[in-house]
Structure formats: C-alpha cells, structure tokens
C-alpha cells in the first residue's frame, strides 16, 4: 500500500512538472515567432486572441486535425515510434533537474550523468525517422544530425566535466549549492571558456540555427521530418523545443547558479532579492537562454556542414581540454572564491 501511495505521489510530481513544461513549449513557439518578427520588423502572430496569445492552441488544433500520411514503402513501426523516441528523452531528463531549492522529482547522486545520457538518446528519434521514411532527403538529414550530435556531445560532456570538477559532485542539487553566493560566485566566471563551449554545443545538440543542417530547408527540404505530417510532425516540433528548454535549464543550473538570486549573500540586496522565490530566478535564467536561441536564429547565417564538424572537433574540444588543465591548477592552488 505504501509503495502504491509513493508511486501515485511520484506521478503527481511528474504531472506538476510536465504540464507547465508543455505549456512553456507551446508558448516558446509563440515567443519565437514574435521575437523573430520583431527582429525582421514584422508583427508576428497577432490574430488569434489578444496579441495572438492563443496562436499555439490554434496551431495544435490544426495539427491534430490533419491527416498523418504514411509514405509508401516506409517502415511502419519505426515511422510511428520515431517521434516518440525523440520527445521521451527530452522530457525524461527533467526528472533530475531542480527548479528550486529541493523542488526536484528525483534527487539522485549521478544526476549529471543521467542528464547527459538522456540528452544523448534524443538523436535516435532523428536517425530512426530519417531511415524509416524511406526518402533520400530524410536519410541525409538523419545522417547529418547523427554525426553532428555525436561530435558535439563530446565537447558538451567535457564542458560538464569542468562543472563536475569545480563542484566535486554529480548530484545536480549539490552542484547548484556549490555556487551559493552572488553572481560572481557562479561557475560561469571561472569556467567562462567551458560555458561558451557548452552553450555553442548546446545549440548544435538541439540542431538549431546556425547549426540546423539536419533540417536545412534550402538544401534538403526539411531533413529528417520531411515525410511527417499532422500530429507526428507536431511531436518532433515539441521535442525540439523541449530539448531547447532542457539545454537552457542545464545551462542555468550548471553555470548560472540555478535557483540563486544574483545578489544572494550580499548584506542589503541579498535578503531583498531572496524574497523572490528561487523558482522565479531559475525561470528567468532559462528564459534568457531561450531568448538567445531565438536571437541566434534571427541573426546568424547557417554554417556549412564541414565547418560545423571542424568547429566541434578542432576548436571546441581542444579548448575544453586545455581549460580542464587550467581548472585543475585553479583547484590545486585554491584560486579565488570558487575553489
């Protein structure tokens, strides 16, 4: 009986986390169109509801009512499973991310490893979709996405090894607590090169502009999801945005002090800013990174494919390795307020 109650409690926690997350995903698509609109001197969606605020729901309704076309000679089972494979890891990773002090579904010891493992599973959705569609554009998109994600995972993993060294723990709550203090105590400052590498590889991991060669609409139509329509396409779309929120959440936790306010621990400002709940600070930090995603999309041209690979292997990975050595020197000498 007690076990069943515990299961119900866990399920309740999952629902409480996932419902706001999915609403955030829906409004992320709205925010993206609005911000891109402002960048390009347009208005963006403004017809459905006040300021177009109901646009995500209209889109969802439209996509749900559309027919899902199964291409001839497509591999049925895998074709249907692929969108699920891409959204499940994006949502599962949230199990260990604390959105506030103690507000986490599973406070596990190997949390950071778990997040990395889940992030690396996301690529299967893309690869399986590309192969099962039985279309050359889809296969090309899948191959590009696979190579790109595997390459950037290494740089991202190394960047997070730096965080692990600085905090001395794989437990995500402990990583945040290791950054307790004002803004200059957070890991972004001593780990600045790793932070930048993490962020670039995070954008590449989610296959977003300027690294979105997996979709590359001007070359391979829409890449891996070219054959998908209706709700199956919508699930890919949701997975992409859920992944963006996940990567941004990780960035906020690993480098920007998670739920701490920027003035935490200072004499006068500290207590005033601590009145704001930690969850709000976390969401603000995530929102900043999400805005950056859109900003990049509106600003940078797409990278050429070989340049993406070169950047990942020959620039980002060496930078992380060098900074890990520098960081070990910091740790040995007890440098600054961080180590």
């Amino acid at each position, binding site marked *: 009986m007690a*076990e069943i109650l515990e*299961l119900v409690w866990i399920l309740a926690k999952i629902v409480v986390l996932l419902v706001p997350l999915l609403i955030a995903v829906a409004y992320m698509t709205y925010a993206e169109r609005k911000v891109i609109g402002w960048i390009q001197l347009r208005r963006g969606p403004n017809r459905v509801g006040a300021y177009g605020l109901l646009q995500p729901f209209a889109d969802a309704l439209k996509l749900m009512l559309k027919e899902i076309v199964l291409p001839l000679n497509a591999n049925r089972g*895998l074709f249907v499973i692929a969108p699920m494979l891409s959204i499940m890891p994006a949502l599962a990773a949230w199990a260990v991310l604390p959105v506030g002090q103690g507000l986490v579904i599973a406070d*596990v*010891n*190997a949390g950071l*490893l*778990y997040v*990395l*493992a889940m992030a*690396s*599973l996301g*690529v*299967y959705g893309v*690869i*399986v979709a590309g*192969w099962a569609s039985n279309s050359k554009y889809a*296969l090309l998109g*899948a*191959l590009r996405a*696979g*190579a790109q*994600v*595997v390459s950037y*995972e290494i740089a991202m993993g190394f960047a997070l090894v730096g965080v692990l060294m600085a905090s001395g723990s*794989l*437990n995500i709550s402990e990583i945040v607590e290791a950054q307790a203090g004002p803004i200059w105590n957070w890991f972004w400052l001593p780990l600045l090169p790793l932070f930048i590498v993490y962020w670039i590889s995070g954008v590449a991991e989610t296959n977003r502009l300027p690294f979105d060669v997996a979709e590359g609409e001007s070359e391979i139509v829409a890449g891996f999801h070219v054959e998908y329509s209706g709700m199956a396409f919508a699930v890919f779309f949701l997975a992409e945005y859920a992944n963006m929120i996940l990567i941004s959440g990780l960035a906020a936790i690993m480098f920007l002090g998670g739920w701490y306010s920027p003035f935490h621990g200072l004499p006068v400002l500290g207590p005033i800013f601590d009145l704001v709940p930690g969850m709000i600070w976390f969401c603000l930090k995530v929102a900043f990174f999400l805005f950056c995603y859109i900003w990049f999309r509106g600003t940078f041209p797409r990278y050429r494919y*070989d340049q993406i690979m*070169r950047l990942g292997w020959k620039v980002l990975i060496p930078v992380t390795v060098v900074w890990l050595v520098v960081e070990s020197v910091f740790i040995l000498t007890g440098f600054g307020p961080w180590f």
Partner: protein
Amino acid sequence: MIELIIFYVFAAVLIFAATMVITARNPVHSALFLVLAFFNSGVLWLLAQAEFLGIAVVLVYVGAVMVLFLFVVMMLDINVAPLREGFARYLPVGVLVGAAMLLEMLLVLGSGELSAVGLAGGASEALGGVGTAQSNTALIGNVLYTIYVYPFEVAAVVLMLAIIAAIMLTLRRRSGTKHQDIAKQVHTRKAERLRVVRMNPEKRD
C-alpha cells in the same frame, strides 16, 4: 515487490530484444534491438544500485557507439539472403562457442567472488574501510585511480593507439578531390575576395 516487478519486466524485454538481435530479418532492426538490449541492461544495473555503470552503458554504448553503428548499417545496403545461407553449416560451431561462454560465466559468477556486494566490500576494505554511504561513482573513481591505476592507464594507451590508427587510415591522399585549405580560408582578407568597382552611370537604351 515493485522492484521485483520492474526487474522482471526489464529482464523479459532484455531477453526478447537480445533474441531479436540475432533473428530479425532487417539489419537496421537488429541494430535497434541491440540498442534496446543495452538500454534494458543499463536499467538492470540501476536496479542493482550500480548507477554509474548503468548510466555509463546508456551514455557510451547507446548514446555514441550504437549511433555510429546504425550509421554504417543504414548506409550499407545489406542483402540478408546470402548472409543466411551458411546458417546450418556454422550452427555446430556457434553452439560450441555459446556453450563455452555459458560455462565460463557460470564458473565465474557461481564462485561468489564476483558478486556486486563482494566487490564493493573488497574495494572499501582495500581503501581502509570507506563507508558505504559514498556514491558508487566516487567509489569506482577511488579504486580506479589508486589500486588499478596501471591497468587503467594501459587501457587508455591502447584506446589512444586505436584512435591514432583509425585516423591514420583515413589520411590517404586522393587525387582529383576538391580539398579545401581551411587555414587559407580562415586567414583570407576582404581585399583578396572583394573588389569595389567604380563605374560611371550609364544610360539605359
């Protein structure tokens, strides 16, 4: 109770997936079932409280190795029929190898030396009685960098050799390819690529 149910569910899926790896007709399906098998064995390790190993197998094998493996399988157009021709001929050899491996595993696992508890206990004894409260990532790290540091370093060097060898294999020069000199591209200046031409306005006729 619930742990037992979870164990049996994942073990059943694992055995099913492992069987499908060798019986599936399509090589891509085989590879995907192998992914499923790895994932399930990772979950079983998690249940045995070996969280580091469980997650590492997902991270390394599922997240990286199998992706590359799938790549190759997807790009090769493998015809299954010729692969299946010699099945009956090779069956006795296969059975023999399988039986030998099963016997070896039974001998090692049956001796009781290699149970998870025994290993963790032995490691913590070797380190002077480290408490069991430590996470097993830290425990593995402590053992790996003290007692087993030489085997660990040797393994690292062997892997390094494999990496260098694999890269050397790709470094053959082919003629007729449009190879780009990246350094030259990066160091290019505006003056080399762009010419501003001053033209007098011309009258359209």
